């Protein structure tokens, strides 16, 4: 991982969030509002992708921030990046809500083609941007179908079995395709 100078914007953002979460853990409402101010756009992006509808995504956001309120104490700044912790919590909470509502997505996944997408856009994304953009750029280097499946797994919480059903492909094929794609992704990310 590239080492960051302590005063880079990303590192300061992380520091600010770590401190705000520590204050949330001591039931400080203003601190939760600060966490909200710093993260609501990003976390709303996750909810919106998972639910598709603004109203549902906003309902999920309420649950997400209440969960943050209750669980902030379990975030350990020594062991992780607060943004990752919040994004993972949001994704898991949103997927739980979706499932509890019996709305597990079952729509067929259209797998377009098998050709790697070497568009210059992906290259442009890779150059000169932060870690966030990097995975977005790297996923573009996979075949469109593989990229779709990995995105679907992340945003909809689908298991291998779900993916097999929704793509109408054998489980074994799905598994080996995704595993190959993950190795390729790792090479690009490392």
């Amino acid at each position, binding site marked *: 991982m590239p080492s960051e100078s302590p005063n880079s914007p990303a590192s300061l953002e992380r520091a600010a969030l770590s401190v705000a979460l520590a204050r949330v853990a001591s039931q400080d409402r*203003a601190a939760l509002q600060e966490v909200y101010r710093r993260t609501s*756009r990003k976390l709303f*992006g996750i909810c919106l992708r998972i639910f598709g509808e603004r109203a549902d995504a906003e309902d999920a956001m309420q649950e997400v921030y209440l969960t943050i309120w209750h669980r902030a104490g379990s975030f350990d700044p020594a062991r992780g*990046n607060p*943004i990752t912790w919040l994004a993972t919590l949001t994704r898991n909470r949103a997927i739980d809500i979706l499932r509890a509502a019996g709305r597990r997505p079952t729509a067929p996944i259209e797998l377009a083609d098998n050709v790697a997408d070497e568009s210059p856009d992906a290259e442009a994304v890779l150059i000169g941007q932060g870690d966030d953009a990097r995975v977005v750029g790297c996923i573009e280097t996979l075949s469109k179908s593989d990229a779709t499946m990995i995105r679907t797994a*992340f945003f909809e919480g689908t298991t291998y079995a779900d993916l097999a059903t929704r793509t109408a492909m054998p489980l074994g094929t799905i598994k080996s395709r995704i595993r190959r794609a*993950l190795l390729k992704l790792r090479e690009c990310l490392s």
Partner: protein
Amino acid sequence: MTDDDDLLAAELALGLADDPAAAARRVQDPAFAERVAWWEERFAGLAAPLGEEPSPQLWNRIAARLPQNDNSGGLLRWKVISGGLAAVSAIALFMLVQRPQIELPPQPGAPAVASLSGEKGSALAISYDNSTRRMTIAPVQLDPGKGDAELWVIPVGSSRAVSLGVIDARKPSSHQLNPAQARLVAAGATFAISLEQRGGSPTGQHLGPIVASGKLVET
């Protein structure tokens, strides 16, 4: 870590494999847990903002669902216990007047933040809210050994470090600065952590090594 192990970590991070054994391994095997965290961090990057913002009322809806401040629950107890005792009622009345606003200010002052680090891997974060003079310190990695970690501030335009006291090296802590200290702590000031004997340096100057430092920046 073999490729198979690493793939299992990635599958767990994505939730692809409904595998209790892998989940258990995450708890027991630190090297594996680190890989799951690595993948989680990468995948979290997929969640780049879509450019759409939640509606402006959303925060108020969340705030309305937070548990009431403990102070108001305490107040209720005060009123019950105080009964007819005039003196106690007066205190309760005073507390009622002092009762914290449930409504949050629409835009809280963004605190200034410092991210401190040093060559040996020590790291901590400090935030400071000028309007309340409240400083919060979150140690990320800080090992004071058998002694204590002491926090110093070097004000803007000065080369002299002033002690802000010994800090808790293990967990986040909050400190209320007095007005004299608050005058030293402003954007551009530098914080430093030194390792001192138990109870801190007795001389008013740091004696032990500086293990982390960083500048306070407005956010």
